[in-house]
């Protein structure tokens, strides 16, 4: 009897083990293999580097759980050329890069030609992947879906990112400064996180004005203004969206009449006006320059990505206070409203990976979104995206910017744009238009908006993303 019982017991265990095995039936067995994976990351961008730095730890997981050895090699390219580098490689169906760190807007560009793996099947067949709970819908919208708003998933969120306001705490809390400010504007400067939650743009401008002191080589604000990549648009969108405007209709693809409105012109003008509180040369400010201005002690505050919080801790530790960026007033005089650009990067899987590498990529993602790894990512300064980690008590204290990041990470406060494959062309046009305006080449913001709206819609129309043709007279608009 015992013998039979024991046998029965063993049998039950075996059957029990078979069940998960059946679910994993699609797994490629890699036992005993040695595999090299290459990751293409973003040069000079800390979160990408962190992902890359942590990936060797996956080797232990792979060894223990699945019995294979994996090694990683890395390549990098800066933001503005990474898509190009990846695309040039992927267009030749190369598996030079097995996993690619992508920017959120590029999803369409990678997905439409079939260069990356559509993840729906992978997720559905892998219970671990299916079980991942992301913190907010905005994570899915921004980093995973193409087209925007659909439930076709093409990327896994590597790094969540929102905009936050870095403030020189020492100057903010300095009693002399506070008194001088109160005397001048009859207003108290904000002091706490909650104060900044309530801060609206008109008051914010007063603070910028107050701290713009060229004779001391100190200025009010640093934010993105550069023509390079997406910088000027990212910052301009903050103004446009927060004041209630839109840049396109992502269902119909209409841009003309939506982007080039009077309201948006006012928003652009407001954005341009902020330049007077920025250091000279600000029109060329991209990520590096904003950080350099901040770390060089040249500005009172900076509207910048939470992702680089680690590197905004100079000039001295403890000087940076990280709070939500100011709310704007709807239409310039209505209720406070805050919608800022979403940042962050997904990573995508090369569609031309061989079966083995595909399996490794899948295992890798499975590992990355476990709570332990996400916590470690957070501890090292990355921005995690899963609910269990963000909701953990004490999360906000792990890093100084986590509170701001978490607060902004929601669909009501963040927005991404254009996961369309033609994004690069559209971007170039809009960048050119906006930058021409803020540098004074174009005097009237309406002209810049008309130019951008016409060209962006034309590109969408030419490539079939919209059935709406832009008005013919738009072709004659010149940027001057």
């Amino acid at each position, binding site marked *: 009897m015992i013998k039979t019982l024991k046998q029965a017991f063993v049998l039950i265990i075996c059957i029990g083990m078979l069940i998960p095995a059946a679910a994993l039936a699609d797994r490629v067995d890699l036992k005993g293999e040695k595999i090299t994976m290459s990751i293409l990351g973003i040069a000079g961008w800390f979160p990408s580097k962190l992902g890359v730095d942590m990936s060797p730890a996956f080797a232990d997981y792979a060894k223990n759980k699945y019995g294979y050895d994996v090694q990683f090699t890395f390549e990098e390219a800066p933001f503005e050329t990474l898509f190009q580098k990846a695309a040039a490689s992927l267009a030749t169906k190369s598996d030079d890069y097995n996993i690619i760190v992508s920017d959120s807007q590029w999803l369409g560009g990678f997905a439409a030609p079939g260069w990356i793996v559509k993840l729906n099947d992978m997720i559905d067949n892998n219970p671990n992947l299916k079980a991942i709970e992301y913190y907010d819908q905005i994570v899915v919208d921004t980093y995973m879906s193409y087209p925007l708003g659909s439930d076709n998933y093409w990327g896994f969120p590597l790094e969540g990112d929102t905009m936050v306001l870095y403030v020189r705490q020492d100057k903010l809390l300095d009693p002399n400064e506070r008194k001088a400010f109160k005397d001048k504007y009859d207003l108290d400067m904000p002091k706490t996180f909650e104060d900044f939650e309530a801060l609206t743009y008109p008051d914010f401008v007063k603070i910028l004005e107050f701290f713009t002191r060229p004779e001391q080589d100190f200025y009010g604000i640093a934010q993105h203004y550069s023509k390079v990549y997406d910088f000027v648009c990212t910052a301009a969108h903050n103004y446009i969206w927060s004041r209630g405007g839109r840049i396109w209709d992502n269902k119909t693809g209409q841009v003309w009449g939506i982007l080039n409105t009077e309201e948006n012109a006012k928003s652009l003008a407001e954005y341009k006006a902020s330049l007077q509180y920025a250091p000279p*040369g600000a*029109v*060329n400010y991209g990520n590096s320059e904003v950080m350099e*201005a901040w770390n060089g002690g040249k500005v009172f505050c900076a509207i910048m990505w939470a992702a680089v919080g680690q590197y905004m801790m100079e000039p001295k530790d403890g000087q940076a206070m990280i709070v939500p960026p100011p709310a704007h007033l709807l239409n310039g005089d209505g209720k406070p409203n805050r919608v800022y650009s979403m940042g962050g990067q997904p990573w995508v899987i090369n569609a031309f990976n061989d079966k083995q590498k595909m399996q490794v990529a899948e295992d890798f993602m499975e590992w990355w979104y476990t709570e332990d790894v996400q916590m470690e990512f957070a501890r090292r300064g990355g921005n995690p995206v899963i609910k269990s980690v963000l909701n953990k008590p004490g999360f906000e204290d792990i890093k100084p910017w986590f509170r701001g990041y978490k607060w902004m990470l929601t669909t009501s406060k963040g927005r991404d744009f254009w996961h369309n494959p033609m994004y690069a*062309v559209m971007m170039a046009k809009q960048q050119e238009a906006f*930058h021409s305006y803020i540098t004074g080449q174009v005097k009237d913001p309406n002209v810049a908006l008309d130019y951008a709206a016409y060209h962006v819609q034309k590109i969408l129309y030419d*490539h079939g993303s919209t059935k709406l043709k832009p008005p013919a007279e738009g*072709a004659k608009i010149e940027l001057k």
Partner: protein
Amino acid sequence: MMSDSSIDRMVLQKFATTSGRGWLSSLENPKYLQHLLLVPVLIFFIVWNVIPLFWLAGMGFYKYVLVTGEPLKFVGLHNFIEIFNSFEIWHALSNTFLFVIIGAGTQTILGIILGFIFWDSKGLPGRRIALTLIFTPMIMAPLASGSFFRIIYDPIFGILNYFIKSIFGVTIDFLGSSSWAFPSVLIVDTWMWTPFMMLMTLAALGSVPKAELEAAEVENLSWYQRLINVVLPHGKFILMLGILLRTIDSFKSMDIIFTMTRGGPGNATELIGITLYRQAFNAFTMGQASALAIISLLIAIAFTSIYLHVLKKKESFA
């Protein structure tokens, strides 16, 4: 020029040990040899010049955007019409022509002046070093020079503005202001290539027979007269060569400007090379980029024809 007899002597000396004829004898026939010698070059030429050229010519009539995943679509003259109607491209072309004319012009004038200044410098201590210093800008990778001038021009951290601020009390945003960007970029280009024109001038001066120069000295001709009557007739060709080379190279400019301003601010420093690059490798709109490339090629061929015309004149002159 060697005399015929000395040539003969030299040849016979070298032929003390004559090579055997062997299997290479078939190569002796000039009829075959002349073409055989060309074969390697022709292969290169056909594969890397002719085939791409036809591809380019063809692609210009198609719509092919790599990132949409759509297959090629024939669109006839659509791309060319787009280019013709595009404000952006006309602007880039006009910027480019301005850049070439002002740039090449300045470099030529400065180069000629420098060439003359250095012409008599045989006794200069450390002459080799001095010349090396002058020629170095030419050999720096444009990418590197551009990067480095970005630092020098930077309004906050750059050394130029440091001096300007101490003397005049203002900072100039060289690369960020729409009025300063174009001149700033031109200055860097001039810095890089004036030495080239100087080299050309020295070469031109070098091609003047010594006898004539000495005769001019003896006759005590003025500096100006010497230039017109002695130097120019002989050196004209080389100078023209230099100017044309510079013009053509300048037309292509991309690396150095791209690194400094990306064609900005706005599109103040957008040159046709940059536009082409952007269309091809930012937007991956291969069809349109090809059309623009064809147009650039036609412009380049026009320049080359002038160039060859001048060359032919030299042949007849010599």
